[in-house]
C-alpha cells in the first residue's frame, strides 16, 4: 500500500479543522465537574446512542472484523455477534439502573452501599488497568494504520494520536469527547455504508451471489461459507462468547456513557439506538469483508497483511481504481482520515474514563476523602490524563511489531470477571459485602491473568499448560463464587442495611442526578 499523497494532506487538514472547531465549541461549555465528566447530562438518547456506537467501535475492532471475515468467512462474524448480544446484557442488567444510582463513575453507585475507600481504590485500579490495555491496543492500531496509509513513522504516529486525544480530553472533557464520538461514528457509518453498497452493487445486490463469489475466491472454497475455519472447540468458543457478552456489560468506557444523559428513559434509548447502529455497521462490515475476499486480487490480499487488518483500505483503494490511480489515492486518503478519527475518538473515550477513575475516585474520594473542590478535581483529572497518555505511548512503543491480538479477548474476560459480577451482586444481593467485592475482583483479575499467561496464545512453549484460549468460562464463575464466599465469611451489617437505598434508587430513579445544562 502506498504512503502519503496530496489528497491525504488535504483530507487530514479538513479533519483537523472540523474537530478543532468542535473542540473550541465544547470548551466553552465545560464549567463544572458535571460538564467535565458527564457533559452536563445534557446528551439526548439518540445522540448518546451514536456516541455509544463510537465508544464501542475502535479502529482496531472495525479493521479487525473485516480482516477476520476476509480470512475466516463465517467464523469471522462470530465476534461481532457476541458483542451485539453483549448490549442486551448492558441494557438488562446495568444500563438505566447505573444511570439512576451513579454520578460519574461505577464506584459512585457501588459506594452507596459498599465501603467508600476500599471499593473506590480497587474498582478504579481495575478501570485503569482495563483502560490502559484498551489504550495500548488502539494506539498500536493507529500507529500501524498511519504508517501504512499515510507513511509516517510508527512512533511519530503514536505521538500524534496521543497529542490529539490529550487536547480533546484536557480542554473539553466529556463534552468534546461526546461530540467527537458523534462525528466519528457518523463519518465511519457513512464510509462503511458507501463501500458496502458499492460491493453489493458489484454483486447485483444479491448477498447469495456475493457469498458465492467470496467462496470461489477463498482458498477454503465451500468451507468459507460454513463455521469451523477459526473456532473449532466448543469450550473455547463458549468461553469467548461469555467474555464478549458479559465483558461488554462491565466495560468502564461504555458504562460512563450512561451518566451523560438526563434520565433513565434516555439511558435505555441510548442502548436501543446503539444496538441498531452497531448491528447495521456489523452487517456492513460483513459485506465489506466478503467484498475484500471476492474482489481483491491475490496481490492485494497479501497487502492486507497476515491478520487481514488492512483488508478494508485495500478494498477501498481497489474500488477507487487501484493502487496509484487518482480515485484510489483519494479514497484511501478519506479512509485513512476516517480510520484515524475512529481511533482518536475511541482512545479519547477510554482516557477520560481512566482519568475519572484516577481523579474522581482515587484522588478526590480516597486520598482527599471527598474534601476537595471541583476545580482541583478537574485539575488533577487533566494532570492524570497527561500521565495516562505518557504511559500509553511508552507501552505502545514497547509492543511495536508484537502480536497482541490476545489482549482484546483478555480485556473483555477481565471486564466480565470483575466489574460485571460486582455490579450484578451490588444491585441484586442484599448480603453482598465490601470484603466480598474485594475478594471477587482480586479472584477475577488473578484467574483471568494466570489463565491467559498459561494459554496457547501467550505461553512461549509449544504445548501450553492450559488449553483454554479465553479464561472467561472459568474466571467469571470463580469471581462470582469468590464474591459470595467473601460476603458469607466477612459479612457487613452496614453494607446490607444500605442495600435498600441502592436498590430503590436503581429501580425507581428517586434522587437520580439531573441535567445541569
Amino acid at each position, binding site marked *: 500500500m502506498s504512503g502519503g499523497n496530496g489528497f491525504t494532506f488535504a483530507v487530514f487538514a479538513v479533519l483537523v479543522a472540523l474537530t478543532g472547531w468542535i473542540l473550541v465549541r465544547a470548551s466553552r461549555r465545560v464549567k463544572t465537574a458535571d460538564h467535565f465528566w458527564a457533559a452536563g447530562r445534557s446528551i439526548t438518547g439518540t445522540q448518546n446512542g451514536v456516541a455509544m456506537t463510537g465508544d464501542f467501535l475502535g479502529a482496531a475492532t472495525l479493521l479487525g472484523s473485516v480482516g477476520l471475515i476476509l480470512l475466516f468467512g463465517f467464523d469471522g462474524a462470530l465476534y461481532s455477534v457476541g458483542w451485539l*448480544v453483549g448490549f442486551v446484557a448492558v441494557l438488562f442488567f446495568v444500563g438505566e439502573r447505573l444511570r439512576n444510582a451513579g454520578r460519574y463513575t461505577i464506584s459512585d453507585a457501588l459506594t452507596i452501599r459498599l465501603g467508600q475507600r476500599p471499593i473506590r481504590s480497587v474498582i478504579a485500579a481495575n478501570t485503569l488497568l482495563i483502560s490502559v490495555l484498551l489504550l495500548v491496543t488502539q494506539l498500536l492500531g493507529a500507529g500501524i494504520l498511519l504508517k501504512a496509509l499515510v507513511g509516517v513513522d510508527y512512533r511519530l504516529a503514536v505521538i500524534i494520536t496521543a497529542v490529539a486525544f490529550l487536547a480533546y480530553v*484536557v480542554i473539553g472533557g466529556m463534552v468534546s469527547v461526546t461530540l467527537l464520538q458523534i462525528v466519528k461514528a457518523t463519518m465511519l457509518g457513512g464510509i462503511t455504508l458507501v463501500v458496502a453498497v458499492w460491493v453489493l452493487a458489484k454483486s447485483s445486490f444479491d448477498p*447469495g451471489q456475493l457469498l458465492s463469489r467470496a467462496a470461489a475466491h477463498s482458498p477454503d472454497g465451500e468451507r468459507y*461459507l460454513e463455521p469451523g475455519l477459526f473456532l*473449532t472447540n466448543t469450550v473455547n468458543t463458549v468461553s469467548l*462468547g461469555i467474555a464478549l457478552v458479559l465483558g461488554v456489560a462491565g466495560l468502564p468506557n461504555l458504562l460512563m456513557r450512561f451518566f451523560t444523559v438526563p434520565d433513565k428513559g434516555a439511558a435505555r434509548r441510548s442502548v436501543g439506538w446503539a444496538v441498531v447502529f452497531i448491528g447495521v455497521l456489523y452487517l456492513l462490515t460483513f459485506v465489506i469483508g466478503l467484498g475484500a475476499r471476492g474482489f481483491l486480487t491475490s496481490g492485494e490480499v497479501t497487502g492486507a497483511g497476515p491478520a487481514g487488518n488492512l483488508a478494508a483500505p485495500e478494498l477501498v483503494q481497489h474500488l477507487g481504481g487501484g493502487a496509484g490511480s487518482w480515485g484510489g489515492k483519494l479514497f484511501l486518503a478519506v479512509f485513512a482520515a476516517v480510520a484515524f478519527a475512529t481511533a482518536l475518538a475511541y482512545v479519547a473515550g477510554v482516557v477520560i474514563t481512566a482519568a475519572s477513575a484516577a481523579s474522581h475516585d482515587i484522588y478526590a474520594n480516597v486520598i482527599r476523602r471527598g474534601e476537595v473542590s471541583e476545580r482541583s478535581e478537574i485539575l488533577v483529572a487533566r494532570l492524570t490524563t497527561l500521565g495516562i497518555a505518557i504511559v500509553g505511548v511508552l507501552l505502545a512503543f514497547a509492543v511495536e511489531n508484537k502480536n497482541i491480538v490476545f489482549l482484546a479477548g483478555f480485556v473483555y474476560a477481565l471486564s466480565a470477571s470483575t466489574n460485571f459480577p460486582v455490579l450484578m451482586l451490588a444491585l441484586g444481593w442484599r448480603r453482598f459485602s465490601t470484603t466480598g467485592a474485594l475478594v471477587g475482583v482480586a479472584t477475577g483479575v488473578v484467574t483471568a491473568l494466570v489463565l491467559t499467561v498459561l494459554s496457547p496464545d501467550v505461553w512461549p512453549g509449544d504445548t501450553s499448560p492450559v488449553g483454554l484460549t479465553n479464561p472467561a468460562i472459568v474466571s467469571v464463575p470463580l469471581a462470582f463464587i469468590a464474591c459470595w464466599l467473601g460476603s458469607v465469611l466477612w459479612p457487613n451489617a452496614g453494607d446490607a442495611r444500605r442495600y435498600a437505598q441502592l436498590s430503590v434508587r436503581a429501580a425507581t430513579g428517586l434522587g437520580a442526578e439531573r441535567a445541569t445544562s
Partner: protein
Amino acid sequence: MPDVETSRAPVEDTTIAGVDWDAIERDPAYHELLAMRRRYIVPAAIVCFAAYFGFLVLAVNAPHALGSRISGGFTVGHLLMGCIFLVVWAVVWGYTRVATRQWDPQAARVIAAAEAAGAIDRTPESPSRAPGVEQVVPVGEISDAAPTSSRARREPAR
C-alpha cells in the same frame, strides 16, 4: 483553557439522607415494580442468551449442516446468524417499550406513595440542600433543571 467554576462544594459521599429507603422497600408497589422488571428481563434474557450460545455450540459441532445452501452462497448458518440479530433487536425494542409504558409509571407511583406516607423528608428551611427530594417531582422530565450547586443532603462520610 476554560476556567472551571470555583465551586467549593465537596465531592463526597453519594448516599442521600432524609429518605426512608426501608419503608419504600417494604411497599407492595415497589415489589410489584421489581416483579414487573423480572417478568420481562428473565425470559427475554434466557431467550436471547440461549439463542446465542446455542448458535455457537451448533456452529462448532455441526458446521456442515450450517453450510447447507439456501440461495447462492447464502447458507443456513447465515440465516441463523441473521436471526440472532433480529432476536437482539426485538428484545431491546421490547425492553424500551415495556420500561416506558409500564415500569416508569409504576416507579412514579412508588415515589408518590412514599411522599404521601412521609418517607421522603422535605426540608423547606434549606431547599438548596435537599434536591434528592426536589429531583423526585418531575419523573422522567428534564425541563426544570436544578442548579449545579444544589447537591443532595449527604450522610456523613463513612
